[in-house]
């Protein structure tokens, strides 16, 4: 536990070392994604002449995308290549002298980024009210925010395992960057980051139920918005735990086989 705390503190120091860079990128990306999504839905609402579509008003849709833009960072805040780069550079060997396992170290550093971004969830309320709805009372309670943040961190753990699985493919393949981008596309689209899953056709939702994707973004966002009852949240968290176990087992298997492929020379 002490070792974990030390790694988290060290990673936080790294993140804060590039403060100005971070804020320009983070705020720029968050605001941009939000403004573009809002403009699109505003146009759809206006052309339909309706104030509500599939249970969403323009204000709840805005909130949905605001949470999602931070949520995608919580899920995939750590850069592509967080393991594969070490394999390709041949710097993997240094972890042999670390007082904890390589996979444990990488998972903790990954989740530190998730923790860091999850702290920004409270910032979205400020943005939401300042920019769009200064007169409206918040739709979110502190209890839902806390619960949703917890679910987001669980989802980040599941995504970290999926990402680790893909990153470890670097022990065989000469470049896995494109595989990681594919994973992001699929997880974000089928997770409900581009369009809320409520707009997907019923047959697609039926299939998605058997994948981890809807629990990565849709579940935590809806939890924060108070659109999930406690039973649904518990069920969703249980399913996330199942996927974490499943991908963790796959990671360990791949790790065991892949280590034998590592030459230490890099490419």
């Amino acid at each position, binding site marked *: 536990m002490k070792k974990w705390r030390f790694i988290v503190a060290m990673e936080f120091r790294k993140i804060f070392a590039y403060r100005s860079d971070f804020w320009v990128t983070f705020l720029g990306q968050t605001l941009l994604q939000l403004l573009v999504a809002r*403009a699109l839905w505003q146009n759809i609402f206006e052309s339909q002449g309706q104030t509500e579509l599939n249970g969403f008003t323009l204000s709840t849709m805005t909130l949905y995308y605001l949470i999602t833009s931070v949520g995608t960072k919580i899920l995939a805040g750590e850069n592509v290549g967080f393991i594969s780069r070490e394999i390709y550079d041949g710097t993997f060997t240094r972890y042999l002298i670390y007082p904890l396992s390589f996979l444990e170290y990488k998972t903790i550093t990954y989740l530190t980024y998730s923790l860091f971004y999850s702290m920004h969830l409270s910032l979205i309320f400020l943005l939401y009210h300042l920019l769009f709805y200064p007169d409206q009372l918040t739709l979110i309670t502190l209890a839902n925010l806390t619960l949703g943040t917890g679910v987001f961190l669980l989802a980040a753990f599941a995504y970290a395992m999926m990402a680790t699985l893909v990153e470890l493919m670097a022990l065989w*393949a000469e470049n896995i960057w494109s595989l990681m981008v594919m994973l992001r596309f699929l997880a974000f689209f089928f997770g409900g980051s581009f369009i809320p899953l409520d707009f997907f056709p019923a047959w697609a939702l039926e299939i998605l139920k058997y994948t981890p994707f809807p629990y990565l973004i849709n579940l935590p966002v809806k939890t924060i918005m108070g659109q999930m009852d406690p039973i649904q949240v518990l069920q969703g968290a249980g399913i996330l735990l199942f996927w974490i176990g499943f991908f963790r087992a796959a990671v360990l298997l791949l790790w065991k086989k892949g280590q034998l492929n590592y030459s230490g020379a890099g490419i």
Partner: protein
Amino acid sequence: MNRYLRLYLNFLRFSFSKAMEFRLDFTFRILMDIIYYVVNIAFFKVIYLHTPLVAGWNIDEMMIFVATYLLIDAINMTFFSTNMWWLPFFINKGDLDYYLIRPVSPLFFLSLREFSATSFVNLLIAVGFFAYSLINYPGTFSAVDLLLFFALIINGSLIYYCVQMLMILPVFWTHSSKGFIDLFYSMGVVMERPDRIFKGWLRILFTTLLPFALIASFPSRIFLDGFDAMTMLHLFLVSLSLWLLMLFVWKKGLQNYSSASS
């Protein structure tokens, strides 16, 4: 001109032989772009399940727009993208010297040296989807409309290139490893939306200072809604200004280049 053409053919030869060395990566990258295309098409298909019109366009018209921005993206990925990836590193590490002393335009060399063979396969797929969307489009169009559309697509690709360069070139002054390129990639989503959804200051921003809405949306609008002199004039003026601004910043950047690495 002939010299540049010969040089470019050599770039092509080297790029293809390099791509063939890493066959698995070659396959992964093609697959990645196919997924990107499918996700983009699915995005609008899902939206049209709930509305007949978006920004005044029906699903067939929207598919022409989607095909347009996928085509422009594929053109840029094929011809410029890899070069744009390396440029900030060359500037930052002082490796630009090797390009400045060659007897060809450094801007030409640095922008076009790496031709992406994998993206070329995706460019063919994007062309296929573009043709499919045109065939399924119920409206009528003449050969002249189509020729103008192609010219505007090329112009859109050049706007994309200029904006990307303008986001990278601050590296000459900031000495960071990226410039504002992460922000540029995030802004790519503006290109993927019809310009008519933007209103007020956002519209002014995306059609002038950060003209992402001009890349694919204006060409599609001219093709789908008919020729409009004001839209063409707007497109021409912004494209020309952007090109001149990019050349100006490039020259100023070179004057500021110290060759020392950081």
